[in-house]
């Protein structure tokens, strides 16, 4: 079930006949959606309905069993290699290197994307996510909420056009939830957000809603 349309929009995500099956059991099938620029898509559904799988297919981490997802920016289809610059993912299953400090994690993910590292930007981002004085600390010593905040810093470093959020406020306190709200609203102005959640407070951000059953 999905609402909203945006034919002819230069920047968009096109989902056509998408399906995913594990061992002959379909998680979902025949999904057709268009997510336009400057919008938020909220994916809802019970546990095991395929919310995270759908996000991973969008990110190119999991292959679809049928159909496809095209990311179109400036009327050009984004390739798998370009996705690394255009997508930012925050997910409970995504972990950062616990043996590295927060700044070293940012530096590493910046380097493997082929981007120049700036300590000033690292400090700005860490301050933005509420980790201003913890940049030199090992991630292994962080609480789960602090790790979640650092994931946002890593996902936002390369200013992605699409932000993919799986359970965006998990492990976060009230201030953290406010930070996520700010990030989602800013990202909507800059590009697109696709989030998977069942939290009513997060679903309200969705301009469109997709319910998996």
């Amino acid at each position, binding site marked *: 079930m999905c609402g909203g349309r945006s034919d002819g929009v230069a920047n968009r995500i096109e989902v056509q006949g998408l399906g995913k099956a594990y061992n002959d059991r379909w998680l979902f099938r025949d999904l057709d959606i268009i997510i336009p620029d400057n919008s938020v898509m909220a994916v809802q559904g019970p546990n095991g309905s395929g919310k995270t799988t759908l996000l991973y297919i969008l990110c190119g981490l999991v292959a679809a069993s049928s159909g496809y997802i095209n990311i179109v920016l400036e009327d050009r289809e984004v390739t798998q290699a370009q996705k690394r610059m255009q997508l930012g993912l925050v997910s409970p*299953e995504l972990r950062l*290197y616990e*043996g590295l400090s927060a700044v070293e994690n940012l530096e590493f993910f910046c380097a493997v994307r082929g981007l120049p590292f700036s300590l000033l930007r690292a400090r700005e981002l860490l301050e933005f996510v509420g980790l201003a004085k913890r940049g030199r600390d090992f991630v292994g010593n962080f609480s789960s909420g602090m790790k979640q905040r650092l994931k946002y810093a890593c996902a936002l470093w390369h200013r992605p056009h699409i932000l993919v959020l799986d359970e965006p406020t998990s492990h976060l306190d009230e201030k953290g939830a406010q930070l996520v709200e700010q990030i989602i609203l800013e990202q909507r102005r800059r590009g697109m957000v696709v989030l998977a959640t069942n939290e009513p407070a997060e679903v309200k951000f969705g301009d469109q809603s997709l319910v998996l059953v």
Partner: protein
Amino acid sequence: MSLRKLNLGTKALSWYSKCVAVLQKDLRLEFRTRYAYSSLIMFAVTTLVAISFSLAGGMTDTDIAAALLWIIFFFSAMTGVSRAFVLEEETGTAIALKMAADPAPVFLGKFLFNAALLMSMAFLVVPLYLVMFNLSVAIVGGFLLTVLLGVVGLAAAGTILSAIAAQSAVKGSLLTVLSLPIVLPLLIGATSATRTALSGSNPDSMAIYIAMLIFYNGSVLAASLLLFEYVWHE
């Protein structure tokens, strides 16, 4: 300089820096934990000491001596290099790495890390092996080249097999079983070259064994670079 050449140059430079970033990250993590290096060295030295005691310190047959060196290298390598991708999967960092990095620089960075790890093991184990078994090397250059090429081959095969094993449920334990048929040509070539280097007999055959090792390493690296993207992404 044409724009196309400039583009290719920039791309190669960016590719190289990504590969170095993966290598530096793995080296930094290893220096802090020394987990892979410790298990590798402990396995190699324990095996060496156990064999040395069972043979009462002497080894006259170069055929057996050469085979023992490469059996020690093989099993030690599989203990250490299996961590390259298995650890990324087990700790959940593989998702972050897949989201950020192109597959080829990841493979090459991991391969260079494994090669450095095995090289440092060889640096310690080879002198111990020669002293404990009371062996002398007749063709020193050939022996050193064999160890270098053999270690590089083990690192290349171990890296791609580690990526395959990381996608399975049994992970590390699968690696040794998977790797034996693939590493067998390398072990045969390296054992033959080591035997020739130790005994000094039939030195002309050394060039053939060295060529065999170079061919093996080139083939495994080229095939791994082509296949890695499919292994890495489901």
